[in-house]
């Protein structure tokens, strides 16, 4: 056996075999390192990139919230009054009555029509037809211009004015709107949009709308309650 190896491993081969084995081992280790290390490092790099993106989104989101909190958070109330979540028919009616009174119009009749929901929209609407009498047309025009700037949002669909001797009869068809409130908040990692300049202009516009008068009825004291309301 020894003789065989001695014959196989000539002195030339013996001198070359050790450095060759070292090179082969280093190449093998190098390939293994690349095969195992490269995917891990690229995974870590993509994780870091993703993590950075999320961090930036969160920072932006926090900045948007801080900015909104300092400047415009009160606007949620007016935006809700302008477009509430329930039918604002009674609020609009009170606005019609108040505005017609201040313009010396005699509010003679009103009719609420059926609720309409557009198939592609979450906004629901209802038509209100109101009749008025006045001595001239100018107060009707002032009333209509005023109705275009009241909360809740009211649009003027159609106006018919007719003179009958000395009386001006007006029939106005308004449309009122409401929409369900948003039920979900966007995911934390989703970017949150700031209010655009157009949005802020709309907000300023609706903020100037005439709000309905709300009355708070104080609760009656307990001793004034009637024990037997049938007697």
């Amino acid at each position, binding site marked *: 056996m020894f003789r065989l190896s001695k014959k196989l491993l000539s*002195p*030339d*081969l013996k*001198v*070359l075999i050790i450095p*060759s084995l*070292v*090179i082969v081992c*280093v190449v093998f280790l*190098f390939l293994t*390192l*690349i095969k195992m290390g490269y995917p891990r*490092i690229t995974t*870590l*790099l993509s994780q*870091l990139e993703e*993590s*950075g993106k999320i*961090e930036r989104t*969160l*920072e932006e*989101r*926090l900045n*948007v*919230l801080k900015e909104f909190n300092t400047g415009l*958070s009160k*606007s*949620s109330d007016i*935006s*809700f009054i*302008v*477009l509430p979540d329930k039918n604002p028919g009674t609020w609009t009616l009170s606005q019609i009555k108040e505005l017609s009174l201040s313009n010396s119009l005699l509010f003679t009749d009103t009719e609420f029509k059926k609720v309409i929901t557009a198939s592609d*929209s*979450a*906004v629901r609407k209802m038509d209100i037809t109101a009749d008025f009498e006045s001595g001239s*047309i100018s107060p009707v*025009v002032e009333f*209509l*211009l005023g109705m*275009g700037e009241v909360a809740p*949002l009211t*649009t*003027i*669909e*159609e*106006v018919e*004015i*007719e*003179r009958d001797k000395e009386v001006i009869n007006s029939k106005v068809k308004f449309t009122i*709107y409401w*929409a369900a409130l*948003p039920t979900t*908040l*966007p995911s934390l990692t989703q970017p949150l949009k700031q*209010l655009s300049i*157009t*949005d802020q202009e*709309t*907000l300023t516009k*609706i903020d100037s709308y005439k709000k309905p008068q709300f009355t708070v009825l104080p609760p009656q004291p307990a001793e004034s309650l009637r024990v037997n309301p049938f007697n």
Partner: protein
Amino acid sequence: MRDINLLPQELKPKGYAIKLSRSLRKIGVVFLVVFLIVSIFAAGSFAILSIRIRDSNNRQSKLKTEIRAQEQTEQKLILVQDRISKVTSILSSGDSREEVGVLKDVISILPPEMAITKVNLTDSKAEITVFATSSLYLTRFLAQVINSNYQNIELVSFSYRDALGGYEVELGIML
């Protein structure tokens, strides 16, 4: 003293083998050094990236806590954005507001000798009927209406009412 090699000459490697062996050793050393450098670089990158990811995750957790603390503000913002988008959509769909403005303009140029007898305003058109006892006032009024910057003015009807003793004109004004 002279070197004496007692080994048999056939056991001594040949010159080309010794040269090749030296070259292979050098290559092996270079490979080993490169391997060590790459290994250190890889280990360093792994460690640095892991630390940076951990730090980023910590910062994210902190930001998420701050955002959760502002949940009420977030709800208000979402509500405002939702309402504004819907209000904008409603306002852009159009109504008769502008036609009311047209009626106001017509009233402002109407001479006291004339009167508006009938008005019909829709989101596309303002139909206004006026009555004039004299054709002179009517001509002046119509000239003023034409001079206004309305894109389209229609003369829907023009009639003389003998019973009322004047002219009745129906105009259709479109913006």
